[in-house]
C-alpha cells in the first residue's frame, strides 16, 4: 500500500509540474506575439538564453542518461530502451527548466500557422496563386485572402467598392509578404496577404539565409536588427522562412554592407558576443567604404 501511495504522490507531482510547464510555455508564446519590434513579430529567445551551453552536439549523440531528471524537448528523442536522450540535429545543447533541447544550426523551414513569410509567386491559375516560401511544399494563395473583406456594418454606412475576387492583383514573379493561415504535415500551406505589414513589396533586395539562424539576425528583444537599421539607415523586414527584404532607397553601398553584415551573422551564428562584434565590424567597414 505504501508503495502505491508513493507512486500516486509522484504522479501528482509530475502532473503539477506538467501543468506548470504548460502554463509557462503558454505565457512565453503570448509574450512572443505581443512583442512588436518595428516591423517584426517573433519570439526571439531561442539562441540567447542564460542556460544555453555552447556545447556542439551531433545527431545520435547522447545528451543525458538522467531520464528521471530531464525530459526530451525540441530536437531530441528518447532512445528505445528509454534510458538515454539523444540529439537528432547538429546543433547547440540547451537546457530549459527540465527540458533538454537542441537548437539546430542548419535545417529547413517548416511553416507554422501565424508565421510571416516572404513568398514569391511562381504560378497562377484562375483559382489561386502558387507561391514559393522556401519550404518543402509550395504555398497556396487564394484570391479571397488577397482582398479585405468588409464587415456588414461597414458596407451599410461607408460606400466601399468591394474589390473583385480574381487573380489579377499579383503577377508571376511578385514578391509578397504573407502570413501562413494553415499548415500541416500533409496539406499545402495556405497564405493570406490581408493584415498589418502584409502585401506586395516593390523595390529592394531579398536575400536568403539559413532559417534556424533568423533569431540571431533579430537578436534578443530585437537588439541586433535595431543596430543594423541604425548603422545602415536601411529598412529591413525579416521573416521566419529565412528570407530578408531590405531597401536602402537607392544607396547601393549601404545595402551591400548590410548584406555582408548579415552573411557574417549567418556564418558566426553559434558564437558568443555577436552583437558587439557586428557593431565593430559595421563601424570599421563604414570608414573603409566611405559610407556616411
Amino acid at each position, binding site marked *: 500500500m505504501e508503495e502505491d501511495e508513493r507512486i500516486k504522490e509522484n504522479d501528482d507531482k509530475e502532473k503539477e509540474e506538467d501543468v506548470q510547464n504548460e502554463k509557462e510555455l503558454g505565457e512565453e508564446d503570448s509574450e512572443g506575439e505581443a512583442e512588436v519590434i518595428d516591423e517584426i513579430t517573433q519570439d526571439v529567445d531561442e539562441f540567447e538564453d542564460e542556460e544555453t551551453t555552447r556545447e556542439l552536439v551531433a545527431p545520435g549523440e547522447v545528451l543525458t542518461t538522467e531520464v528521471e531528471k530531464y525530459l526530451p524537448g525540441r530536437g531530441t*528523442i528518447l532512445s528505445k530502451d528509454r534510458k538515454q536522450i539523444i540529439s*537528432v540535429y547538429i546543433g547547440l545543447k540547451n537546457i530549459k527548466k527540465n527540458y533538454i533541447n537542441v537548437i539546430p544550426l542548419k535545417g529547413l523551414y517548416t511553416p507554422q500557422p501565424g508565421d510571416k513569410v516572404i513568398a514569391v509567386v511562381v504560378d497562377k491559375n484562375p483559382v489561386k496563386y502558387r507561391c514559393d516560401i522556401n519550404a518543402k511544399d509550395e504555398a497556396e494563395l487564394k484570391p479571397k485572402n488577397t482582398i479585405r473583406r468588409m464587415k456588414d456594418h461597414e458596407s451599410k454606412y461607408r460606400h466601399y467598392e468591394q474589390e473583385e475576387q480574381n487573380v489579377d492583383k499579383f503577377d508571376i514573379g511578385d514578391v509578397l509578404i504573407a502570413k501562413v493561415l494553415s499548415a500541416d504535415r500533409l496539406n499545402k500551406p495556405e497564405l493570406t496577404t490581408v493584415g498589418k505589414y502584409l502585401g506586395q513589396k516593390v523595390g529592394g533586395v531579398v536575400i536568403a539565409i539559413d532559417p534556424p539562424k533568423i533569431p540571431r539576425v533579430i537578436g534578443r528583444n530585437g537588439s541586433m536588427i535595431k543596430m543594423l537599421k541604425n548603422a545602415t539607415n536601411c529598412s529591413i523586414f525579416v521573416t521566419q522562412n529565412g528570407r530578408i527584404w531590405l531597401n536602402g532607397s537607392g544607396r547601393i553601398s549601404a545595402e551591400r554592407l548590410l548584406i555582408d553584415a548579415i552573411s557574417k551573422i549567418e556564418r558566426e551564428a*553559434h558564437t558568443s558576443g555577436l552583437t558587439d562584434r557586428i557593431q565593430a565590424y559595421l563601424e570599421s567597414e563604414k570608414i573603409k567604404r566611405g559610407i556616411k
Partner: protein
Amino acid sequence: MLLIKDEYPKLLFREDGKRLDGRDKLELRPIKMEVGVIKNADGSAYIEWGNNKIFAAVYGPREVHPHHLAKPDRGALRVFYRMATFSVFDRKRPAPGRREKEISMIIGDCLEPVLFLELYPGTSFEIFIEVVDADGGTRCASTTVAALALADAGIPMRSLVTAVAVGKIDDEIVVDLSGIEDKAGQADMPLAVSWFNNQISLLQFDGNVSIEEFEKFLEHAKDAAQKIYEIQLAALKNKYISIQNNVEKDVEKENKEVEIK
C-alpha cells in the same frame, strides 16, 4: 578482349609481416573528412579514405521527379552512386551499370532506418555520391560520407552511420581492405553500423570463412567502426568549431592592438 590480364601478387603480405601498403593487419588507411564542400547543395561532405576520393551532396526534402515515385505516407530516399570515368584503371563507361544500381540501393536501405521519413510525406531526399578516385571499399566510404552529408544538411537523424570492411587475405583477418586485397583476397565483408542502439545496418559477404572467424570479423569491424565514427563526429563539428576559433583569435588580436595603443 583484354590484352593485359589482371595479375595479382601471389603474396599479400610483405616479409616483415606487414601488408603491401605497409599497414598492420588491423590498421585503417588514413581517413580525412570535411563537410560543407558544395555550396549549392543543402548538405555535402567529402572523404579521402586511402586512395578513395568521394563527394556526397544531399538535397531535400523536395518534390519527387518522376512523380509516381512519391509515397503518400512517407518521404522517399533516393541514392545515386556514380563513378567517374577516370576513377578506375580502365575507363569506366559513364552509364550507370548493374554494380552502381546495387550500391545505390544498399546505401539507401542502410541509411533509411536512421531518418524520420514519415515526417515528410510526398517528398524525396536525394543523395548524390560521386566517386572521383576508387581503390577498394568505395561502398563503405560512400555510406560513411553520405551519412555525414545528411547530418550537415540539418535533416533530423537518429544517429550517424559508419561503414567499414573486414576480410581475409592469405588466411589472416584484416581490416579495411584496399583494392588489390579486395580482389585477390579470400573473403570480404562490408558492414555498416547505425549508432542508434548499435545496430548493424548493412552486411554483405563474399568468400569462405568459418563461423568462428565470422564472429572475429564482427568484433574487429566494431572496433574499426568506432575509430571511424570519432573521425566522422570531429569532421561534422569542426565546421563550426573552426569558425568559433577564428572569431576568438580575431577578438584577441583586436584586444592586443587596443592595449598597445
